[in-house]
């Protein structure tokens, strides 16, 4: 969110290190929050509405989705979206707390970022264990 890109100086130094392994944990949480947000916008919204429509409209539609969800490949995709949602949710809550000036210093911000990454993965693992 940079509103004044037009007025930024031309020759400022640029530092593009796109290697995710060199990114500090809060940076990882942030870029995953962005990627999961856009992924959910593109794929989860239309899919969720489509599934809601077919599962509610008839018993046969409900049964066919029950069948799809039993397929391992579909389960894998569902697990991917569950991770997207859980990571985005936990990272979102972290941002809301930071907005309230909770955990804003460097050390707590780094540990809360680690908590967010782990919590998203743990929640996804619990879900995956339940559907398999």
């Amino acid at each position, binding site marked *: 969110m940079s509103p004044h890109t*037009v*007025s930024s100086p031309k020759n400022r130094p640029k530092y593009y290190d796109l290697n995710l392994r060199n990114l500090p944990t809060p940076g990882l949480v942030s870029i995953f929050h962005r990627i999961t*947000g856009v992924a959910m916008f593109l794929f989860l919204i239309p899919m969720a509405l489509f599934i809601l429509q077919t599962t509610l409209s008839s018993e046969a539609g409900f049964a066919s989705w029950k069948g799809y969800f039993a397929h391992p490949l579909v389960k894998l995709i569902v697990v991917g979206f569950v991770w997207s949602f859980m990571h985005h949710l936990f990272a979102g809550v972290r941002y809301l707390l930071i907005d309230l000036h909770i955990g804003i210093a460097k050390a707590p911000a780094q540990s809360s970022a680690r908590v967010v990454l782990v919590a998203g993965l743990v929640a996804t693992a619990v879900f995956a264990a339940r559907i398999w």
Partner: protein
Amino acid sequence: MKNSKQPVGAHYGWKDWMIQRVTAAVMLVYSVLILGFFLVHGTVAFADWKQLFQSQLVRILSLLFFFAVFYHAWIGVRDVLMDYIKPFFIRLSLQVAVCLFLIVCSIWTVSILWSN
């Protein structure tokens, strides 16, 4: 152009920022409720699922949730577009496409929730 307001820019204030926080809170509450429903019911049969969405309260809360998602997604995706897409007409076209898509989704949601 220096410091001038762009038609495809942010809305230059705290309003969108606040809406994104409020919609986040709405989604959070609804997610916990739905999760609770699935935890209580275990596997859900068609009859339970259908009955759940026959309730007017559930329909209204669901509509509130989806509208929160759409508004939240609009602000979020607009922020992302502002970061990466600089040419005016490309950004405008993408923003219009996102908006129209979300409006269609809103209408679709109403029809799904109230046609069962």
